[in-house]
């Protein structure tokens, strides 16, 4: 699977459409495995969606004594296997992103599996399907990144732990002020389709990949 998720908190409007839709994925049994939090409601309306980042070396799987958390060939970290899960909650405590949750009723750790039953059939995950703003997007790197003005980052540092993830976080650029001289940078081209627009410029893949490789390092 070449597609992955791109999380852009800038765009999040806090509607929790993703939270509601996650329950609808037929294998999730009505439980939502995505979180949307206000950063600090007293100061701002900003909100942040959290999905599983699908680490390349998942901490949850590393700390699991029963080897219940598996990663598939597409790099998707799955929920714990029911026959193996020991209810120990090591994964819940260890995940640096705070993603896995322990479902007391089902005696099982459950977490975002990138809607594997949907994505394996070529459908988008529920959250990325419904997200009104594109704060959660699902697609190929070269399809999504060139359309955005944000930097994709998939390297995270937690103290001494360095984590690389399949899912990208989109960080804002350094622009700090409003340019009142109009929009010198405006690229909306009237009458051109997206495909035609792409053909008019030089190959963006090279430049994007160069930039993003650097921006992945803190």
């Amino acid at each position, binding site marked *: 699977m070449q597609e992955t998720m791109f999380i852009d908190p*800038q*765009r999040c*409007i*806090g*509607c*929790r*459409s993703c*939270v*509601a*839709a996650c*329950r*609808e994925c*037929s*294998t*999730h*049994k*009505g439980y939502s495995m995505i979180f949307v939090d206000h950063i600090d*409601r*007293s*100061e*701002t*309306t*900003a*909100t942040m969606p959290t999905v599983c980042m699908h680490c390349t070396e998942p901490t949850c799987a590393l700390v699991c004594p029963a080897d219940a958390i598996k990663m598939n060939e597409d790099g998707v970290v799955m929920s714990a296997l029911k026959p193996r899960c020991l209810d120990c909650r090591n994964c819940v405590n260890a995940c640096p992103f705070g993603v896995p949750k322990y479902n007391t009723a089902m005696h099982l750790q459950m977490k975002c599996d990138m809607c594997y039953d949907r994505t394996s059939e070529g459908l*988008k995950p*529920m959250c990325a*399907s*419904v*997200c*009104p*703003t*594109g704060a959660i997007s699902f697609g190929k790197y070269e399809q999504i990144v060139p*359309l*955005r*003005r944000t930097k994709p980052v998939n390297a995270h540092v937690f103290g001494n732990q360095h984590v690389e993830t399949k899912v990208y976080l989109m960080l804002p650029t350094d622009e700090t002020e*409003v340019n*009142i*001289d*109009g*929009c010198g*940078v*405006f*690229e*909306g081209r*009237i*009458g051109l389709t997206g495909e035609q627009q792409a053909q008019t410029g030089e190959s963006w893949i090279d430049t994007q990949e160069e930039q993003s490789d650097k921006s992945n390092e803190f």
Partner: protein
Amino acid sequence: MSKVENLDRILEQFGPHLHDAPDGGWAADRVIDNVVPTHCPYCAVQCGLNLLVEKNKVVGFEPRYDFPVNEGRLCPKGVTAYLQTHHPDRLLYPLIKRNGYFERASWDDALDLIVSKFQEIQAKYGKDAIGIYSGSSLTTEKTYLMGKFARAGLGTRYIDYNGRLCMVSAAAGNNKAFGIDRAANPFADIPLAEVLIIAGANCAETFPVLNKYLWEQRDNGGRWIVIDPRETATARQGDLHLQLKPGTDVAVANGMLNVMVRENLIDEDFIANSTNDWEATRTVIEKYTPDVASQISDVPAKKIEQAGLLYGRAKTGMIMHARGIEHHTNGVNNVLSYINIVLATGKIGEPGKGYGTITGQGNGQGGREHGQKADQLPGQRSMLNAEHRKYVCDVWGLPEEELPEAGVSVVEMFDKMREGEIKGFFSLCNNGMVSLPDTNKIRQSLENLEFNVNVDFFMSESSRYADVVLPGTTWAEDEGVTANSEARVIKINKAVDPPGEAKTDWWIVCEIARRMGRGKYFNFNSPREIFDELRVASKGGNADYYGITYEKIEKQNGVFWMCPTLDHPGTPRLFEDKKFYHPDKKAKFHPIEYKPPAEVPDAEYPLALTTGRVVYQYLSGNQTRRIGFLVEQCPEPYVEIHPETALALKINDGERVKVVSRRGEGVFPALIVRTIRPDTIFIPYHWGEQLAANQLTNPALDPISKIPEYKACAARIEKIHSRELPILGRNRKGASLSEVRRGK
């Protein structure tokens, strides 16, 4: 007669109760019999979605990726919308109120009672003694039928619709300036606009999926200027936020245009060739320098200057507005002052250059086109125009002398109910006890009626006051068209049969008319037959639907009206030839002076109260306050207070405080946030009874559009030393305080 005596019993029987799972619980092994492509029943984006049907029950949804407006996206209301259809609170059979209790009745008994009472009232007090209150969440077929039902069925002049609380200021402003009432551009133009002015519209919470287009524009490098007294999620994401004092929109708009005139950023050619009355307008605009505008609106002059330059210098730009500027006694003036900017810069009628109101209700556009408005006939024709009256009477086969005169707006209709002029009442698709201003007066109006009939699929706060409640259908149980905010006419499809003995709204209306001896005007057996008559009735009007068919809608993913002939593709963008719909084909400027709201803060009531919405609830909440997920996210209303104000009043976050206005008072938990102005407080309005924000709001009306001033009145906050915590603080996952919960 119509009092609510046994509220506890009504709540126990009819809810709101919370329901939060598909029929039969969550299951991974469903066998889906049918996937029905249709649209969300809520706001005017009218997102496409597929309903999953198992054994004649809607058990879930699947994103409809192929519908171009939303490409599968939905807000949380849309995601959970299907949970309404098999909700345990659904009304399943007709109810007649006897001795204060609602009792099950047969359709025959209920309809015969309605007919005999209506005939008795009309014989005693005259034809106009019956009032009809309709709504814009209905399909266009039904809105057309309601107008015809009032005029040709009951022969009463008194009909109006809940769009009166929603889009009328924009409609009146559009008609005055352009001679037509429609958003001028399709959503697809938004990403092509360098600068967007978003005035009084919290798109993030009220039109979430519209944000798809806003962010596409942003990805193209575009800018947003957001004008709102609160730093909403939309304002936070925008580039410039003009945080004005509620009700001072004219000053800000005039101030921005003043900057553009000074810097010569206006389009003289367009003004000369395509508009009238610029000179008079220019004279007024020249008075509103950024400093003057700043003094009135309390927005820094520098920001007004920046906004004027940003929009003025941009090659393309669009202005969008919503209820924030429209819900005022100066609502029409607010709209016209923004249209002045559009006209002065000539940014209209081209890709990326445009203007439009963001319609509120699902069919807010379609609902204001075909004659359920007090003074309107189908096709945006006027009750006051002799030719229009003749055309419609010919289509209906109604003798012209039988067509009543124009009626009055809904707020005035409720006044007439209180004064005793209107004795009988028929309402469908609205909930005045939540949504009309000054709830206490609305209650008196309903209690003063001799006979009150309500059609709904859930028992609303207003249904409780009815003598007869008839069970209608949800959107998934009937078919018909709606027009979304861009005037794209789309088709709602039927997924399942109505539950119990519930009947489609159009059948109910036709059946009452038939039993009143007016059946020859209501010989309809399906929505398609109503639509076919509507097509003819709208022909030649501004909103011409003649060339639209159900098949064309399916084929083209919607048809933008006007569509005068069967081979016409529809009209996505208006004014492309720079011709407008006044007789001389020119648009009209209006010199607008700033006038303060009807009630401004004073020593006794020092704060400006403004009301609005949250993303989890829809309008009066009759549909959404029953869905577990949505109620969990926002279980009760709250009052947003700035920390400075809270400190002065010694109020803590989450503490319940009393909010008092000249009309009434209510107790709400405080949400102390820096995102609101210190002189302003905000309460969301989706709840009823003692949680209603509208206990406080001012029923003062705009003189032209008759829209009430929901967005500005004077209020004060009193500390009540309540120890009760807000529901969210207690982490109680339940219904609001006035609402009882039944176990799942």
